């Protein structure tokens, strides 16, 4: 299978061939769930999960370069068991944290290995190609990734340093350091692991897991975030749109869409929103009502969400102020965690 061995499986235990590897090693979920001799593997799986719930990255002997065969298997099996425990527990917040923490752990290995073996044709490049269909090539100025591959991943980042305009771009490639190349895939890695967990079918509860799952259920309750609106004020983009309309000036279609979807998001009704557009130079009551109803998802149509701040920036609709405080959607303005 693409030349991956026990070391790659331990470092990247979410690779496709891992399930087969565990089976071929003579183990199964039933054994991990019932056999008391295998409890150390289950305990290590819990270590991985608990580190993730604390927002930490699980660390082991493998990080320090220990590649003893028994240890490698322990690493691989503990990941598989952790996935089963999370699956039985079924708490999305835990799965998400675990996927993120494990992706960061794998990221460290990817970065270290990529730096060592200079990209193209290497095992690390093969891992990247298998997981993300990304073609990473070594170039004296950095690791070259095709622009289309780069933005497929970077477009989901909110940090401005990841914008293509802030990267070295030439001849259809983006040039990155090993750290950046791997960091680029973190989100995707997290998604990959999350999807991996989603695809696994949950077995019934087993004695070796029961106590751990009860504990995780308690932790999950504390982790569920709850947002409350603490200010009824509109964000600056919405205020600006309202002012434009009030002055009787033309607000572009994208601005009207932003305004309507935002207000729907804040619980306004079609009837309450429609009069806001009456000063628009091309105001037509029938058209306005029709469009608002369409956007609201009335009559069984799709309900549209307010565009994210990134998109509004591209559309020249963002009028960011310090009060925005790093929000990614206008609907988050004036909200805070409970």
């Amino acid at each position, binding site marked *: 299978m693409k030349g991956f061995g026990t070391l790659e499986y331990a470092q990247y235990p979410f690779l496709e061939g891992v399930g087969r590897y565990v089976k071929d090693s003579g183990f199964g979920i039933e054994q991990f769930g019932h056999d008391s001799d295998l409890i150390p593997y289950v305990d290590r799986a819990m270590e991985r999960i608990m580190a993730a719930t604390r927002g930490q990255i699980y660390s082991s002997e493998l990080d320090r370069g220990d590649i003893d065969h028994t240890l490698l298997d322990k690493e691989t099996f503990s990941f598989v068991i952790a996935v089963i425990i999370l699956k039985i527990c079924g708490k999305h917040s835990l799965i998400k944290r675990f996927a993120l923490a494990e992706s960061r752990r794998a990221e460290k290995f990817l970065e270290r290995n990529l730096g060592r073996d200079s990209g193209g044709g290497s095992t690390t490049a093969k891992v990247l190609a298998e997981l993300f269909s990304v073609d990473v090539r070594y170039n004296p100025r950095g690791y070259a990734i095709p*622009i289309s591959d780069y933005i497929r991943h970077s477009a989901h980042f909110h940090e401005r340093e990841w*914008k293509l305009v*802030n990267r070295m771009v030439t001849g*259809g490639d983006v040039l990155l350091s090993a750290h950046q190349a791997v960091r680029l895939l973190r989100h995707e890695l997290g998604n990959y692991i999350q999807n991996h967990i989603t695809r696994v079918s949950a077995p019934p509860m087993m004695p070796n897991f029961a106590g751990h799952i009860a504990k995780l259920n308690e932790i999950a309750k504390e982790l569920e975030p709850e947002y409350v609106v603490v200010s009824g004020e509109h964000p600056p983009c919405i205020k600006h749109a309202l002012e434009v309309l009030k002055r009787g000036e033309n607000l572009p279609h994208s601005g009207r869409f932003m305004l309507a979807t935002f207000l729907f998001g804040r619980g306004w009704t079609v009837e309450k929103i429609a009069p806001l557009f009456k000063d628009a*130079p091309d105001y037509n009551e029938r058209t306005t009502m029709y469009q608002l109803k369409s956007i609201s998802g009335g009559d069984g149509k799709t309900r549209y969400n307010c565009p994210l701040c990134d*998109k509004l*920036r*591209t*559309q020249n609709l963002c009028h960011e102020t310090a009060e925005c405080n790093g929000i990614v959607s206008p609907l988050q303005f004036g909200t805070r965690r409970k």
Partner: protein
Amino acid sequence: MNEADAALVTGAIKKYYLDHHDMVPTPDKISRREFGYQVGGGSMVRHLSYADERALRVMLVGTAPSDVYCSNACYRFPTFAMKEKSWLDASLIFDIDAKDLGLPCRVGHSILVCAECARVSPAAAGKCAACQSQKVTVRSLPCTKCAAASLKEVAKLREILVDDLGMDDSSIHVYFSGNEGFHVHVDPGSFDALGSRERAELADYIMFKGAIPEAYGVPRAPGAKLGLPGPDDPGWRGRLVRSLGAAPAKKAARAGHAEFQKTLGSAGIGARIDPQVTTDIHRIFRMPGSINGKSGLAKVPVPDGSKFDAYTESCLIDSAKVDITAECPHRFVLGGRRFGPYSAKDTSVELYAAVYMICKGFAAAR
């Protein structure tokens, strides 16, 4: 547009498609594309599909649409509702519109058409001079300065597409839109599978939008070592230094992070494309060779390297004389001839000029 105006315009367009059907190239994978059209500038009919070139031509001549559009996207089921079309891919398109360039000449060739009394006023009036209504639409007359400035933006875009995005120059096709802008179509390539959000990133790159000082060698920490790029660096790094000049760039960098951020924001070096067009992966886009219903001019290719007079090359409607009543406070040049100004005057002009003025709302058929 009243009935007589609509008849004159539709007749002219029908003759255009009969005489110039070879001007409208058949899109590749035609049966995978969504088509749409408007007749007499009326409401859009879309979600249409044509099996082949012949079917498309029958529609053009039979319907004589004022505007005809084709998707840059391919779908498994192009005639289905948008959510059910099953999007396959979409080639890259760019729109550069003179009205978005903020050119000082615009007031001089923009005209207000009143939505209430249909009278025409100069843009400087700010409202309808006849009935004082604020409900006016701005219409623009041909302007060579606008066309030249737009073509400069096209050249910037082409350089970015080739040097930075690695496209083959021969895969880039530029068209005059037939009204005020230029459309750039790119042959199918590695960007076709990208979604809207990813295309927004490309658009921001092309517009040089969202650049931060750190990426150009100016760290946030005061007193930290500067690492400005060199003029030969690839992409925006080199382009920025070449545009500012090495010494002014260094001076701006030494002024600190916040000042350099302002320098980046005001550099004005990006190509001024309309990001909405590039990011819309379900758009139906004006077809090359078709008539633009806002002007009666055709969307025509802009040849490489030679002089291009947009308002002559695109003027392909017949030149037989017709009678109209025209109201247009500015003079304009179309098809190499001068027209106007007219103040609610009965006159006889070439059909292409009549169609142009009717489409703009400056004239009525007699």
